[in-house]
């Protein structure tokens, strides 16, 4: 035992204070469980410090400035300038307020907070190394443990985040000036959100993506709306190309080289290259073997519907437990794991996970697509309402996109929905409730929706599926 080592015990140990871990810790403490939360870095994890929150803050600022600068049609004359330092400072203030809030909420609910890096030391014990050398460590015994160590950006060959011009999403959100030219590797949601931010700031953005459209995983007609708008904003797309390597250019910038599957190379001049090709679990630094916890070949920790790993007393939640890697899924898992630890009959029994992409326009999806419904054995009926027929959309000046709802023809049950357009991230909440409640098309259609709102489009999409929409023609 090293000097300064102390040993304590706790009923529940939570490792990692991201949206998976801190929510688990608070809920467990609310249920009367003696709970300790270990975090090595900052409260709120990736989400609050380097992910969801900073990206959305930048999206707000750049969108507001861009909109105001392009609203002559509406009678607004303005020439807004975004000062990167000011934007960053504001964003930092937002982050500080939220991370401070998380710490306060943990304390107010009676969670014991420990700062340091945890590693397993057996199936019922971790060792927590306190930050910095010579800061000592402590040993904590637990009855139950929830692993919520999250994920980190994947590095690709020849693009090391240690090199200055190679940026992770985290680096991109911490830049102190606007790059003139940026290559973005990967057109997933993080790549697309940040491409939009920088395009609106005036950066020349070139996106390279191995697959053949932006936002792989989303339906073609949904992704197309966002890609087209990005193109309007000046973003250049190159599909079917993977990033190969980069070198210094002659103009003080860099040259990023890509390769197609067939080996064809292309080169793009840039000042920085943002790599956003996915995230890998933080499970390799935990000595999981010491506890006997198994991972899959990618390093994710498999869990059951109570978020339990192969070791009975150890749970895993959030990104480290695998797809979908979303903050709200991590929080849901955290709540379930905490309640199971508290002896309640909780389980992950949700019908559908909503997800949003905060591009211009936004995407919001929940539950099944038409294809998925068919594969699941339903006879899907689909209803759609374009925003260009929505009074509210017209009055906001945002008229691209649509609401689509997917239902089972026989019973009318709403199975899912895909929204692309203004406030899609918010609008999807109603459809998520519909799916969870087992609501039918008629239930949503019969619910009075405020005029004029974008949410009326959800009602109209349901009416359309029933063959009786008012504001769009029925098929």
């Amino acid at each position, binding site marked *: 035992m090293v000097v300064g080592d102390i040993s304590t015990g706790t009923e529940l140990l939570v490792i990692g204070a991201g949206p998976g871990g801190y929510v688990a810790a608070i809920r467990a403490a609310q249920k009367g469980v003696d709970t300790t939360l270990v975090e090595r870095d900052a409260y709120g994890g990736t989400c609050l410090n380097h992910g969801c929150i900073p990206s959305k803050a930048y999206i707000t600022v750049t969108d507001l400035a861009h909109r105001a600068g392009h609203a002559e049609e509406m009678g607004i004359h303005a020439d807004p300038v975004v000062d990167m330092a000011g934007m960053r400072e504001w964003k930092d203030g937002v982050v500080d307020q939220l991370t401070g809030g998380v710490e306060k909420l943990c304390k107010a609910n009676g969670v014991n907070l420990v700062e340091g890096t945890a590693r397993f030391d057996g199936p019922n014990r971790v060792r927590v190394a306190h930050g910095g050398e010579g800061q000592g460590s402590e040993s904590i015994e637990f009855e139950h443990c929830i692993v919520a160590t999250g994920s980190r950006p994947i590095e690709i060959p020849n693009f090391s985040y240690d090199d200055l011009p190679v940026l992770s999403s985290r680096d991109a959100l911490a830049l102190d000036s606007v790059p003139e030219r940026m290559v973005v590797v990967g057109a997933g949601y993080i790549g697309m959100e940040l491409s939009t931010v920088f395009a609106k700031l005036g950066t020349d953005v070139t996106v390279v993506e191995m697959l053949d459209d932006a936002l792989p995983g989303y339906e073609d007609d949904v992704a197309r709306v966002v890609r087209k708008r990005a193109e309007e904003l000046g973003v250049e797309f190159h599909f079917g190309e993977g990033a190969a390597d980069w070198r210094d250019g002659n103009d003080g910038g860099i040259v990023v080289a890509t390769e197609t599957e067939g080996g064809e190379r292309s080169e793009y001049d840039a000042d920085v290259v943002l790599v956003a090709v996915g995230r890998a679990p933080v499970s390799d630094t935990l000595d999981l073997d010491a506890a006997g916890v198994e991972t899959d070949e990618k390093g994710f920790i498999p869990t059951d519907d109570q978020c339990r790993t192969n070791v009975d007393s150890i749970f895993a939640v959030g990104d480290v437990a695998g797809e979908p890697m979303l903050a709200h899924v991590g929080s849901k898992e955290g709540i379930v794991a905490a309640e199971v630890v508290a002896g309640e009959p909780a389980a992950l029994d949700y019908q559908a996970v909503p997800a949003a992409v905060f591009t211009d326009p936004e995407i919001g999806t929940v539950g099944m697509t038409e294809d998925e419904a068919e594969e699941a054995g339903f006879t899907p009926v689909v209803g759609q309402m374009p925003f260009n027929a929505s009074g509210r959309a017209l009055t906001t000046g945002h008229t691209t996109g649509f609401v689509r709802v997917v239902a089972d023809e026989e019973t009318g049950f709403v199975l899912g929905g895909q929204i692309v357009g203004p406030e899609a991230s918010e609008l999807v909440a109603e459809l998520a409730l519909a799916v969870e*409640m087992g609501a*039918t098309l008629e239930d949503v259609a*019969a*619910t009075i929706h405020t005029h004029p709102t974008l949410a009326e489009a959800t009602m109209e999409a349901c009416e359309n599926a029933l063959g009786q929409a008012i504001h769009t023609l029925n098929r």
Partner: protein
Amino acid sequence: DAEEHAPDARVFAPPSVRRLARELGVDLATVDGSGPGGRITEGDVRATAEGAAEASEDEE
């Protein structure tokens, strides 16, 4: 009995179930809901309608 029903004669049933009740001539105030909190489901309404039909058949 009346005391079991929500105050203000409010019944808790989704819109589609309310419409079904009208179609089948079922008074929702007489239906015992089997859902959470006593929420009335489609099945509850159909059962009540069938029960009423059987009862009237019995009378004949």
